[in-house]
């Protein structure tokens, strides 16, 4: 179909070579190439969870106001030479608010609707997250090692990983894979009268492999398979459960293996002058949680420097096999959790982002609304967890290229 290289005129051959060397073109199927110049990115986000509705809260629920988090992010990209670049990242979270503590039935005999009891006093915490990534761009391979460290009052995580990407000679296909580890340590804040663990830890090992393929001059697709294994203390030390009238600690199995298959498609429409983004992920784990995530978006960049992106994300998950909103009788295996995150539900996210590039600066604003409900689930759900989450996030940011 295409012209043979041997048949190209010298001018066209030169143009082809030039096109191949442009970072965006020669590496369209790769994660990227060495940046042309250093870039500093700053971002501030206000994350605000809706309060628990009064009808879903027990009379003794405490403060129904959930988390409000201020998030500051800084990222600095520095190209060292034609083959190496470094990316340093920092995230600061300042959070306050209450969190769902446990769920109890309306009546002491275990009948009636589930009602949520909140953590009581407002929780204040800060999180600092540091990350450093290097990218080496070889002739055919890109190798990207990374390390990270996250710390907050009661939690520390050290992580590291490496990703490798191979680009085929025709630059239409790339194969990538990677491994990562994380070592997390939790030391919960103790509360008088409540039984909580001390100094627990968990480890994580993840591996993934994937393929990126240029389909035609308008379409590129990427598909990735991943496995992630967690081992150690996987319960939530701040959550409890109602079991036949007694309040017991949240208690989950000591290991969990997760499997994912994710596919992303980008298709440019000349008619709309925009790119259609389609992402789908299937997830399954050995706690019997299965989920489907479908993300549809449209991204437009104008010649005058304005960019607009809008997207809608649909998510639906099944419950963990040991999950119940509350337990009328004790379980033989001693595994309990009433965490809304392990309950069956569905959710929608609506997003809008706008940016404008002026000289070396790009200024950005974005908003996101997340709503969840049992009726959004793919499967029919009998009893909704009363602590399901709704939130709004508003983001302001700026990039500066040196």
């Amino acid at each position, binding site marked *: 179909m*295409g*012209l043979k290289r041997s048949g190209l005129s010298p001018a*066209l051959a030169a143009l*082809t070579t030039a*096109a191949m060397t442009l970072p*965006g*073109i020669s590496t*369209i199927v790769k994660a990227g190439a060495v940046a042309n110049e250093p870039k500093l*990115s700053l*971002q501030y986000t206000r*994350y605000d969870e809706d309060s628990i509705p009064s009808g879903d809260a027990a009379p003794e629920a405490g403060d129904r106001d959930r988390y409000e988090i201020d998030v500051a*992010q800084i*990222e600095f990209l520095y190209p060292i030479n034609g083959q190496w670049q470094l990316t340093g990242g920092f995230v600061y979270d300042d959070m306050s608010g209450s969190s769902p503590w446990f769920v109890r039935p309306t009546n002491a005999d275990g009948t009636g609707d589930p009602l949520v009891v909140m953590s009581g006093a407002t929780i204040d915490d800060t999180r600092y*997250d540091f990350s450093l990534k290097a990218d080496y761009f070889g002739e055919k391979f890109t190798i990207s090692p990374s390390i*990270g460290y*996250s710390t*907050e009052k009661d*939690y520390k995580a*050290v992580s590291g990983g490496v990703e490798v990407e191979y680009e085929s000679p*025709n*630059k239409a*296909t790339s194969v990538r894979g*990677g491994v*990562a580890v*994380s070592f*997390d340590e*939790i030391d919960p804040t103790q509360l008088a009268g409540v039984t909580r663990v001390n100094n627990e830890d*968990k480890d*994580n090992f993840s591996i993934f492999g994937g393929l990126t393929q*240029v389909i035609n*001059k*308008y379409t*590129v697709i*990427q598909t990735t398979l*991943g496995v*992630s294994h967690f081992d150690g203390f996987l319960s*939530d030390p*701040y959550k409890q459960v109602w079991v036949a009238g007694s309040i017991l600690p949240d208690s989950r199995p000591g290991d969990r293996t*997760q499997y*994912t298959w*994710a596919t992303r498609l980008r298709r*440019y429409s000349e008619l709309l002058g*925009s790119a259609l*983004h389609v992402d789908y992920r299937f*997830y399954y*784990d050995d706690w019997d*949680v299965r*989920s489907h*995530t479908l993300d549809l978006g449209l*991204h437009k960049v104008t010649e005058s420097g304005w*960019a607009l992106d809008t997207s809608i994300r649909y*998510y639906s*998950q099944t419950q963990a096999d040991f999950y119940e909103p509350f337990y009328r009788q004790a379980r033989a295996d001693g595994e309990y959790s009433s965490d809304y995150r392990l*309950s069956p539900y569905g*959710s929608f996210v609506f997003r809008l982002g706008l940016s404008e590039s002026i000289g070396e600066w790009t200024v*950005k604003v974005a908003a*996101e609304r*997340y709503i969840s409900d049992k009726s959004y689930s793919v499967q029919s759900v009998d009893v909704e967890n009363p602590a399901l989450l709704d*939130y709004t996030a508003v*983001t302001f940011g700026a990039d500066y290229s040196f």
Partner: protein
Amino acid sequence: MKKIGMVVLLIAGNYLLGACSSVNPWERGILAKPEMAWTPDSLRWQLQEHIYFSKEGSSGGYGAGGGGCGCN
């Protein structure tokens, strides 16, 4: 039956790869447009993924890496 499946897969794979090789470098300008990037904004995407990781029962899919947090 298994052999037929393998043959179909090979033909489909060959067709897909053959079709792709026909996209010449000078025809890839559209693929290089910023709106064709996997994520419209890297920092925003990182935060979104962190929120979903913290607040939903499933996570991961597009790579590996990163530690957990005490988010509840």
